[in-house]
């Protein structure tokens, strides 16, 4: 049973069909790439998977520990609770909050105290706050952001903002992680470092990852399988080697570097 099963997903914006009949399957623990030229509909697929957009048609089924759950039509916070977390192509951190608070807020869905305890700071409040503070620090250490925990998110360098966004997504304790161009704007050294980090968190957090990326070297290096989207339609699916030599993919990219990885 695949962890995620997307069946004939379609999204139209008025006259424009951004995604048409996209079907894909992600097995537990896989690291899969989603590539395609600009405007192909990759981010729209993410927005459909996370409930930012409601699909025009099609289904999204998440299968966690044998329990199937349909995600299409659910609100984003429900989908997050079901175990899907994401980062955004145009970083969407809580800019005016500290690095620490950015991650701590994402633990919200796992916090076990009620409103009464939040007003009166009952023992359950103190116990839980201690627990989530420690968990937050642990995540920040993994991303080497613990030294900057009191900085405002907006003051971090670009690369670290991207890292913080991944840390924040992990704080929601997901099974499926969606990364939208995590290496955008990074130099080759930073990209190499990010590559290692993605591999490492997949093992450590037992994740399944779907990755949108423009940097072909990164995609070809770490993805086990790749889906290629063009004008909202899946035109190819396969291992990096298969994709590299796929005629339709090369046509779609028309001159952009695909083989060069």
């Amino acid at each position, binding site marked *: 049973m695949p962890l995620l099963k997307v069946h004939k997903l379609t999204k139209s914006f008025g006259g424009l069909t951004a995604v048409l009949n996209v079907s894909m399957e992600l097995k537990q623990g896989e690291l899969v790439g989603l590539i395609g030229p600009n405007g192909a509909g990759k981010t729209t697929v993410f927005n459909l998977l*996370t*409930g*930012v957009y409601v699909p025009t048609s099609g289904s999204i089924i998440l299968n966690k520990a044998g329990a199937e759950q349909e995600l299409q039509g659910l*609100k*984003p*916070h429900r989908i*997050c*609770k079901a175990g899907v*977390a*994401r980062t*955004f192509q145009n970083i*969407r*951190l*809580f*800019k*005016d*909050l500290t690095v620490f*608070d950015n991650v*701590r*807020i*994402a*633990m*919200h*869905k796992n*916090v076990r*105290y009620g*409103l009464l*305890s*939040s*007003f*009166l*700071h009952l*023992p359950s*409040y*103190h116990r*839980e*706050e201690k627990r*989530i503070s420690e968990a937050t620090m642990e995540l920040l250490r993994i991303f080497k952001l613990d030294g900057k925990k009191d900085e405002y998110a907006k003051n971090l360098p670009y690369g670290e903002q991207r890292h913080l966004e991944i840390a*924040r*997504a992990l*704080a*929601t304790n997901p099974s499926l992680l969606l990364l939208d161009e995590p290496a955008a704007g990074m130099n080759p050294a930073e990209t190499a470092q990010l590559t290692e980090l993605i591999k490492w968190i997949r093992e450590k957090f037992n994740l399944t990852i779907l990755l949108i990326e423009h940097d072909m070297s990164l995609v070809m290096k770490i993805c086990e399988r790749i889906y290629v989207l063009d004008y909202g339609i899946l035109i190819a699916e396969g291992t990096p080697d298969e994709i590299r030599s796929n005629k339709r993919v090369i046509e779609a990219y028309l001159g952009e570097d695909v083989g060069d990885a």
Partner: protein
Amino acid sequence: MKKGILSAQFTRRLILVVLAYVIVQLLISVNIINDYLQATLTTICINIILAVSLNLITGFTGQFSLGHAGFMSIGAYTCALLILKDPTMPNFLLGTLLGSLLAALVGFLVGLPTLRLRGDYLAIATLGMAEIIRIMFINMDKITNGPRGLSGIPRFVNWTWLFIFTVGTVLLIRNFLRSSHGRACIAIREDEIAAEAMGINTTWYKVLAFVIGAFCAGIAGALYASYFYFIKPDLFGFLKSVDILVMVVLGGLGSISGSILAAILLAVISTLLQSFSEIRMILYALILIVIMIFRPQGLLGSKEISLSVFNRLGRLFAFEKEEK
């Protein structure tokens, strides 16, 4: 190790708070704080409750509201009608509670459909809501005495009740904001889409902020009615809502101590300006404009003054003594 309940910090704060209460009470009993100053004190306390609770909605959760006076009027009328009927202390407390709950209920009913709106649109919707409430009070002539309002409301509010309700609401809101639920509200202000994606039910938390804010405004209204003897619908119009918003913006969106500071400052300024009766409002507006030019983020921005300021002052004094 037992922490939280009886930490040194907590004890120190408790002492400071009790001290503030006792000193003012003493000043009242020897009549240094006379009736006139007591009215100012009452205005300050009521404004603190109003500003802090609106700050929760607008400054912390980021939902622009121009209807706070509407919630206040529900508390005021409910409490006034109850104690006019049967002027007893339990009835005053019951009226305050009932008024606040009613205000919260209206906050909930209004919140659900309107919170889909954003920014200016939400401001207009909340403004409309407050106007509807005001017009309802005008038209329920038989119960509310229409535009003439209710007079001769028995006074149950004294410094003790003011103190309890003001410190109580500020503490509860402060505690809330330092919890995961409060941080969820702040996340909505920062980025609603990201907050949803991180598992925060943004609709629920926006409505919750409205409900808590409306509840506190209801308390402020009840205190107002049972101190100033007289209420009428026009006291709770658009201008009152703007007044409250001015305090919040002046103190700093997202700063509780800023709201408290602004509530005190504005009450003091308008008291001092009493003698310039004609140009009072012009001076008041000028002062506001000047402050906003030099501190566009509000007096305190989103920062908080903490009691550690006192600790530092204390250490400073201790240090000077040693040197002598």
